[in-house]
């Protein structure tokens, strides 16, 4: 449990720094910006207390907000996703898997991919809708949602690929 907590803290710091220092500068094709920090919520152990998950989502989003100077926007979206993470896990994972473990590609394969894509999509829809906050230019917002989600998913899959290889070696 303690090592789990340490790992999560380390992941939190790395993701925040990566997001704030590198990924926020990316504007692929002028539309897509990956929001990789959602990976932290995806990697929360299954079976974690729902209060903790929601609170962690709030803290994560709020930390990003503090750096991005957008109070509340990221926090609202991330809290939302963190709260519903358990319901989405119930959709894709079998009941037997429900011990306390960290979801990963090497462990769950396709199920993890489905879970991950759903989370990312939910988060990006919430985030970009709150950010644009109007129905004007809805086509551009939708394009941003799709492109950003794709970019974030590719990044997460790449990271998962690396970590699974390490485990084999």
């Amino acid at each position, binding site marked *: 449990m303690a090592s789990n907590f340490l790992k999560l803290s380390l992941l939190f710091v790395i993701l925040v720094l990566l997001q704030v220092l590198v990924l926020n500068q990316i504007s692929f094709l002028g539309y897509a910006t990956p929001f990789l920090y959602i990976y932290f919520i995806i990697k929360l152990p299954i079976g974690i207390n729902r209060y903790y998950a929601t609170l962690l989502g*709030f803290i994560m989003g709020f930390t990003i907000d503090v750096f991005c100077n957008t*109070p509340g926007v990221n926090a*609202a979206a991330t809290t939302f996703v963190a709260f519903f993470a358990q319901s989405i896990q119930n959709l894709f994972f079998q009941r037997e898997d429900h011990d306390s473990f960290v979801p990963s590609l090497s462990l769950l394969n396709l199920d993890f991919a489905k879970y991950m894509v759903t989370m990312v999509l939910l988060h990006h829809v919430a985030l970009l809708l709150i950010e644009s*906050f109007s129905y004007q230019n809805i086509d551009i917002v939708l394009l941003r949602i799709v492109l950003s989600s794709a970019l974030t998913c590719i990044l997460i899959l790449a990271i998962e690929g690396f970590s699974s290889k390490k485990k084999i070696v």
Partner: protein
Amino acid sequence: MRNLIAFLIKNGAWFFFIFLEIICFYFIFQGNSYQRSIYLNSSNEIVGRVYSISGTVRSYFGLKTDNEELLAQNSELQKKVWAMEKYITTLQSDSVKINPFVADSLRSYDYDVIVAHVENNSVNKIDNTITVNKGSNHGVKPEMGVVSPLGVIGIVVKVSPNYSIVQPILNSKNKLSCKIKGTNNPGTLVWEGNDYRYANLNGFPRHEKWQKGDTIVTSGFSSFFPEGVIIGKIEKAYKESDDNFISLRVRLATDFSSLSNVFILDNKKGQERLELEKSMNANDR
């Protein structure tokens, strides 16, 4: 009560979630001016529309009182207009102070004013004339300047005991020395003979600055008029055949088609000045 507590505990995560989201949206509206502006604008729009609808409905109920107020106001104003008109007519008969002179009252002190009424007037000929009802019996002499409250009219050319003929600007023989207000470049104002609302300022140096709407005033170089009597305003410019000069089209300040009272200017020192200039010319010969 116990049920309520049980309900709260059971759905505690939901309340926690909603609580956190409320905090987030509080931050969103507090901290982000963009979202706040949209929120306020849309709410303002809705509120404004409701108010405007209720306002249009309510305004119909007030129409009757509004009408009565307007009528009362109207009659009050009409009374004032009549009083003013009466006052103006009394002033016109014995006034010495004339609008065009106000800016230059010191110079105009040299001039006596004879108030006359226009008896006959034309604007549609090439050489127009104006007949006024004051003549030599009232002290009118040829070569006196004539102005209206709005601006320059012309020069007295012929005098009988009780009448005199004025040669207005609207006469091809009339050449009036003038300048742009505030500068000292004299030009000559002539009338082309077509439109009684316009005259031309010819021989204006090309390098001099002018602007549309500048006021043209008399130069004071002739003894007929004091300096600074309004003639009109610049409308536009033409090129002359000589490249060094331009013509300025001047919209006349006086409406020659509707003249009633005019002021004949008697330059008390004009005679002296004319004699001096004549003697100088005689010496030249």
